[in-house]
Every structure is written in C-alpha cells, then in structure tokens.
C-alpha cells in the first residue's frame, strides 16, 4: 500500500523524467564565459591589428590579404568556442551522469544547425558581393535565431539570450558604423554575463 509521500515522489519523478528526457541540461555556463572571452580577443585583434571597423555596408578599405586572415580568425574563434562548449558540456554531463550525445542534445544541435548553416551560406554570399559591412550583423542575427530555437531543448533562459542577440543584430545592421562594437557586446560581453549567470544558477 502506497503512502501519500509515495504519490508525491511519483509526481516528482515524472516531472524530472520529462525534463531530463526532453531537455539537454548539461550545457555549461563556463563555456559561455570562455566564448565571450575569445570573441572579445578576436574583435580586439580585428580592430587593432587589421583596422577592421566597417562604417558602411559596402566596405573595402582593407586589402584582400588581411581579408582572408580575418575570415580565418573568425572561423578559428568559432571552432574554439564550439570546442570549448563541447568539452565543458561533456565534463558536466559526466558529472551529472548524463549522456552528452542523447536525444535532447541531438535535437538541440539539429535545431541550431538549420539557422546557423543558412546564416553561413548567407555570409558567403555577402562576402562574394562585397557587402562586408553586413557580415557582423548577420552573425548576430542568425546566432540569435539559432539560440531561440535551441532553447526549447535546453534551459529556457537561452531564449532571452537569443532575443538579445537578434535585437543587437538588427541594431548593428542599422548602425553599421557601430557594428563591430555591437558584435563585441553581443558575442563578448553578453556571453560572459550570461555564462556567469547560468553558472551561478545551475552549476553550484
């Protein structure tokens, strides 16, 4: 014969199972902080060393050799950030006894991949058409869309982060002269703040 306590426990287990099986909760807040640090460093290098600071949509006041270095730099930052996120999430998943490659993390990846790949191709088109000034706003915009859809499969807080990046992306498309600054704000500062917030909220 079950007691009342057992029924309360039953309900708690049902809720926990529903959450565990539909949301990937090993996403690491520290990975967000690290991604923010990489982004700030990258923006600094691009600005200081390569004088990259678009003020118009059609921007070509830097030569093509530093252009390809900049693309390499941006791609390197991207992979460094993704690598750190995977590594730290893998560590966190191990601690929590969760499988890092489970149904919900797969769902999250697929849902992020669609807007990110679409954005990637769009950026290639912009590069080809020499609309360099729109590249930084585009990265913010599509990254924000990716976070927004991914939030269904992980912490709900990620939804607000996505919305912030979308707004920053639109703002930087309008104010192209501030786009690098807004990019550093979105990918750098906001990531760090959000990462610390998530770390304090879920990882202590």
């Amino acid at each position: 014969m079950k007691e009342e306590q057992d029924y309360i426990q039953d309900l708690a287990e049902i809720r926990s199972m529903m959450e565990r099986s539909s949301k990937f909760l090993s996403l690491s807040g520290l990975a967000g902080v690290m991604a923010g640090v990489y982004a700030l460093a990258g923006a600094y290098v691009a600005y200081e060393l390569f004088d990259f600071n678009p003020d118009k949509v059609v921007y070509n006041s830097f030569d093509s050799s530093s252009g390809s270095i900049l693309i390499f730099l941006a791609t390197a930052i991207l992979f460094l950030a993704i690598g750190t996120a995977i590594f730290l999430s893998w560590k966190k998943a191990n601690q929590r006894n969760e499988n890092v490659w489970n149904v919900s993390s797969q769902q999250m990846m697929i849902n992020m991949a669609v807007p990110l790949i679409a954005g990637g191709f769009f950026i290639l088109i912009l590069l080809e058409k020499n609309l360099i000034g729109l590249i930084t706003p585009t990265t913010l915009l599509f990254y924000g869309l990716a976070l927004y859809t991914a939030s269904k499969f992980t912490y709900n807080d990620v939804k607000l982060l996505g919305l912030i990046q979308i707004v920053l992306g639109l703002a930087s498309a309008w104010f192209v002269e501030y786009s690098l600054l807004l990019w550093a704000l979105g990918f750098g500062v906001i990531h760090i703040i959000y990462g610390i917030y998530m770390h304090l909220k879920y990882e202590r």
Partner: protein
Amino acid sequence: MKLSIDDLHKAFESRVRLGIMSALAVNDGLDFTSLKNFLDVTDGNLATHIKKLEKEGFLEVEKSFIDNKPNTTYYMTTEGKKAFEEHLNVLEEIIKSQK
C-alpha cells in the same frame, strides 16, 4: 473522495514503467538505448517493463535497421497517452484531497 487509489492503473505501480511513460510523453519516439540511459536500469529489467506496457496496449514498437543493426523504437499509443494522463489526474487528486 471521488477518485481513490483504486483508480490508479496497475501498470503504473512501478517507477520504471512510470519513467518510460513520462519520457515517451514528451518525445515522439525513443529507442531502447535512450530509454535505458534515461532510466539507468539493466537491459533485462527494461525489456520486462516494456513487455508489460506493450501488453496493456500503451506502447507501440517499430523495428528497423540502422547501418544493418537492428533498432527498436518505442512510441506511446493514444490509449497509453489517455491512461497516463488519467493516472496523473488521479495522483493529483489524491494529493490534494489529503492536504
């Protein structure tokens, strides 16, 4: 008390079966390995509980091959969904009435 413990479905007495139903309630379908990882039980244990739910008509099984390896995916039937929701309602009622 309108709803009583008698209304609770026997199939949901076990925590493992309750867990299987909870996971399938929020996923379109899950394979054996995913269920095993979520529930942290042995293969044999999980298979027994799945059999029981299948017999009740709460689960649907779809067998397929992925890279020549057999893969079994489990889905919740409409009947299973209904029974699970009823079970949740009864649980809630019991807890409320005892407060």
